[in-house]
């Protein structure tokens, strides 16, 4: 398992939160979060829109003041040592944060100056990060003429340009096509593994959290409801599910299968038999033989392995897509509006 590595030995956490809370009037957006994120970790905050992920990021990046509780980023307190925090981090915000009237290169140049880089260093880093996100050829085009994906990549490049210890990304692939998303995942993995940048990202895409993150915290209503590696989280859900659609003999088949010790549970839902089984792929042949023996006719077999979606469903009682899908579309529309 590719968990967090050697950097842990440095002792101090990259980020620590104790009782971190943010209230907007009556509404509690973030509710007493306690969490430590290790140095060198690629950490995911997973939750539906409005769960409080972005608010956590905004407090950690000094954009919002906590109502209660404390947080430290790379050893610096987010309310008392704001500039020290700012020097340690790079941020890629959820909504575009570029000046569309300037070119990509000029946006990066502005960034470099704000982070105190001198001319030659800026030049070097700009070329380096443009190369990294494949935008070298588009560098001198005004950013209002960039596509959403290009804009996003430039923002990631910018977030990395000053070699931050910790990189925050708020929904880095929201509204992007599958290919661009995979590209961005690759950049982030490289940054994390090769350069040792600690990365914290928020997402409501399960695949993203699963594919990228060393550890995932599932956030619901401003609280952490689950925290572990993606594979441990999935193991908690337990067995695989085998679904059998049966033309006839369902009852007989069920009573036959029930006698096997490796069948954890068996139910019938809307005419489909659902078996909870460990290592389901190796059990399917046995199930088919058993069906033959007791004269049941199976018309289709389905196999479902636990996903983070199931973990999410278990802990929050909802599917993430019920909210995520609609707001994903909204996000895309917002980006269109902004680009005008």
């Amino acid at each position, binding site marked *: 398992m590719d968990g967090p590595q050697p950097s842990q030995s440095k002792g101090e956490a990259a980020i620590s939160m104790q009782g971190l809370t943010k209230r907007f009037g009556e509404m509690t957006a973030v509710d007493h979060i306690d969490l430590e994120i290790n140095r060198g970790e690629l950490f995911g905050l997973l939750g539906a829109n409005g769960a409080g992920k972005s608010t956590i990021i905004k407090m950690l*990046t000094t*954009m919002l003041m906590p109502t209660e509780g404390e947080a430290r980023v790379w050893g610096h307190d987010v309310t008392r040592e704001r500039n020290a925090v700012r020097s340690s981090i790079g*941020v890629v*915000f959820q909504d575009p944060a570029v000046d569309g*009237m*300037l070119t990509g290169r000029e946006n990066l140049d502005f960034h470099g100056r*704000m982070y105190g880089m001198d001319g030659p260093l800026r030049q070097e880093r700009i070329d380096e990060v443009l190369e990294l996100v494949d935008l070298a050829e588009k560098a001198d085009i005004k950013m209002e003429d960039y596509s959403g994906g290009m804009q996003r990549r430039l923002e990631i490049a910018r977030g990395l340009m000053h070699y931050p210890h910790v990189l925050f990304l708020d929904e880095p692939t929201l509204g992007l096509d599958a290919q661009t998303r995979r590209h961005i995942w690759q950049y982030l993995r490289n940054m994390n593994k090769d350069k040792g940048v600690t990365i914290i990202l928020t997402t409501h895409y399960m695949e993203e959290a699963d594919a990228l993150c060393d550890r995932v915290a599932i956030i619901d209503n401003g609280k952490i409801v689950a925290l572990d590696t993606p594979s441990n989280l999935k193991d908690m859900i337990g067995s695989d599910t085998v679904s059998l659609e049966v033309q006839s003999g369902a009852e007989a088949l069920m009573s036959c299968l029930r006698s096997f010790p490796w069948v954890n549970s068996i139910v019938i839902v809307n005419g489909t038999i659902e078996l909870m089984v460990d290592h389901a792929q190796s059990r399917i042949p046995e199930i088919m033989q058993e069906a033959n023996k007791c004269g049941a006719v199976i018309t289709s077999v389905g196999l479902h392995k636990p996903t983070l979606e199931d973990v999410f469903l278990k802990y929050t009682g909802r599917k993430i897509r019920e909210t995520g899908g609609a707001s994903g579309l909204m996000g895309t529309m917002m980006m269109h509006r902004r680009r005008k």
Partner: protein
Amino acid sequence: MRQDLNAIYSIWLREMLRFFRLKSRVFGSIASPFFFLAFMGIGFGGGTTMSGIPSGVGYVSFLTPGIIGMTLLFSATFAGLSVIWDREFGFLKEIMVAPVSRIAIVLGRTAGGLTTGILQALIILVAGIFMGMKMPSIDGFLLSLVFMVLVAATFIGIGLAFSSKMKDMSGFSLIMNFLIFPLFFLSGALFPLERFPGLIRDLAYLNPLTYGVDGLRYSLIGTSALSPVVDLAVLAICCAAMLFLGAYLFENTEVK
């Protein structure tokens, strides 16, 4: 400290890039003061005399410093308010998350607004001279620059204060109609304050622009209603107060 100077410079540089890249903005912002200058100057200029303007001072000479004040009022307030655009388009977050002091951000904005405002004011000055305003002396010109800086900085501060409290541009026309235009008309930019009835004249003396226009008149055409020392003192106080207020409110904004 050095890092803050860097930040002031980079914010100023960005304002310059944006200003010169948007040709329509340059022309748009200079057009309305230019039309005021041209049409008021032609309409009231020539042979007519206006009570309150010292004899021997033509209306165009009287008007030009007023229109310079107008130019500074509009461009400086907009420069301060442009933070709202940055908020709307997200760029404010990029600025706010940078490891620089908030006062450097305010000063960078102010420097940008000052530069563009004074550039526009100088264009109006040249236009006024073409229309028949007497050439100012070198000393007078240099003194007028001081007044220009103070006027511009005052209204940048006011713009910043408003932009820290406004979430989007929806309040813009309110500010335009109930703040900027009244300040303009109540400044004596177009005609002498003594033509106003007493109560309105008192109101005009609560307006920082009144002192700016008066000081500009003193430095550019050598005539003023108040002592230039009073003008300078009042403006300097307003300028410091407004910049402080703008910086204070800006410092405490959260970026949602």
